[in-house]
Every structure is written in C-alpha cells, then in structure tokens.
C-alpha cells in the first residue's frame, strides 16, 4: 500500500512535465500564428503608407478567426494610421509604428498544484516595431 501511495504521488508529480511541455508547444503555435497575421498586416501597411482601417479590421478578423477564445476587447492595437511617405533621408516621423498584443491564457498547465491564480497564469504576447513607408510623397 505504501508503495502504491508513493507511486501515485510520484506519478502526479511527473505527469506535470509532459503536460507542461505540450502546453508550451501549443502556446508557441499560438504565438507563431499571431506573428504571421501581424506580419501580413505590417507588410500591407508598408505598401499602403499606414495602417488603413480595412487593414486593421482584416487583422482583427483574422485574429478572431484564428483564436476562438479571443474577443475583440482582448486584442490591443496601437498603430500608425496617418499617412507616411518614403523620404530621401531617414526621418523617424515618417515611420509606421505598430504595437499589437493578444493574451496567452495559460502559462502553467497545472496552476492549482503550485497555487497560481488564473489571473497570474496569463500574459500578453506582443509584436512591436516599425517599418518604413514605400509610398511616394504626392
């Protein structure tokens, strides 16, 4: 009986590792999908000279379709929406900036086991940066 109890306890402890590794692979796939959607939107913004509303809406819809757990309020988008132009010299004011974030809901697979609350067991994954406009000044 003693061996059975010790074995069960050990099994519970050891099962955490493969479950956690699986969760991390799922989170990695989520971040990779998120990066791809943002990348397409950023490249579109580069040729448009800014993040057009249609581009932002498409990105939002793509994110909502890719991640069913997301609602519109979960998606944080702070991007340049005013027109920017290609210049002969580098000018930071003519760059298109973006800061896009979505939540990753689970960091630890068995939070209860470690006393971690649901609120502490998530974070926002972020894509930030800048691209230069390819639109010529009219």
């Amino acid at each position: 009986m003693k061996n059975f109890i010790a074995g069960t306890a050990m099994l519970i402890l050891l099962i955490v590792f493969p479950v956690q590794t699986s969760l991390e692979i799922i989170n990695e796939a989520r971040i990779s999908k998120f990066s791809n959607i943002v990348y397409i939107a950023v490249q579109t913004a580069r040729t448009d000279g800014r993040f057009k509303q249609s581009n932002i809406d498409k990105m939002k819809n793509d994110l909502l379709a890719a991640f069913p757990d997301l609602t519109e309020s979960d998606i944080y988008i702070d991007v340049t929406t005013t027109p920017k132009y290609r210049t002969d010299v580098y000018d930071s004011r003519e760059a298109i900036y973006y800061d896009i974030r979505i939540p990753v809901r689970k960091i630890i697979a068995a939070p209860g086991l470690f006393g971690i609350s649901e609120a502490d067991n998530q974070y926002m994954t972020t894509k930030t940066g800048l691209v230069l406009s390819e639109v010529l000044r009219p």
Partner: protein
Amino acid sequence: MKPFIAGTAALLLSIVFYSFLHDFNLNRQALEELKVVCEEASAAGSLFIDNEEYAEGKIVFNQIESVKAIEAVIIASLELDSNMDPSVATYWQKKITYKAYFIDDRATDYPYLYIDSDTGYTTLIKAPTVVVTINGGKGRYALPLLKNGSDNIRSGAHTWEDR
C-alpha cells in the same frame, strides 16, 4: 527507501529534460524573430539610394541614411535602448551588434558571390542588395553546460530585383 531514491532520480531527470526543452523552444522562437528583424532592417536600409547616381541609371545606397534606418528598425523591433542594450523584458541579455553590407552598382560586378563572414551563408547576388547580420548574443539556457554555447546570429537580405 528504494522507491524514494528512484522517484527522486526520475524527478531530477524530468526537471533537467523539461528545462532543456523549455529553453530550446524559447531560443528557437527568439531566433525566428531575429531573422524577421534582419529582413525588416535590410528592407528599410535598401530604401535609401543616391539620387544623383540613380539619375545615371545606377543604384548606389546612401549608406549613412540606410544605417540610421537599419538601427531604428533593430532598436524598435528588439526593444533596445539607444545603445542597443536590451530592456529587461526581452529575451536577449547583452548588447546587440549588427553588420550591414551594401552591395550596389558603385563597385560591384554581377553576379557577385556573397559569403557571410558570420554565418557562412553563401549566395549569388545579381542586383543591388543590402544584407543585415544581427548577433543577439548567447541564448537563455538554465543548464550550466549549455550556457556557453555559440552566439545567436541571423542574416537577412533585400534586393532591388526589378529595376
């Protein structure tokens, strides 16, 4: 006692194995991001050309402005300060270094065999190109035997193909 020793050994082995997998996946993800930044930086750098040379039908990069654009993209994308040191929240731990190579119509005979001195990547360049190589430094590995691994280096290039 025997089950206790066997259990402890299994637990330790699992911790080591998990630690490696976790750090390895994180490193792979950071390397992919580094590659994207190289591509973005080279695309930004290739936008600045010498207009007088362009009027003569040549594409010659304005290296001073290109470097400013490349640095701006690297700093913004990798969340660095103006000295290229990473902020606390980023994956990278030490000062980021980069190299920019400008292969243009100033003194290049095409096709030009480009060999990256850091990564060994070899390619035949047929048109003006900006190559950006970023060295992100060592990855974050918890296991002591992996801490002194090689630097994380990625390259990206942007070419003026249709001119």
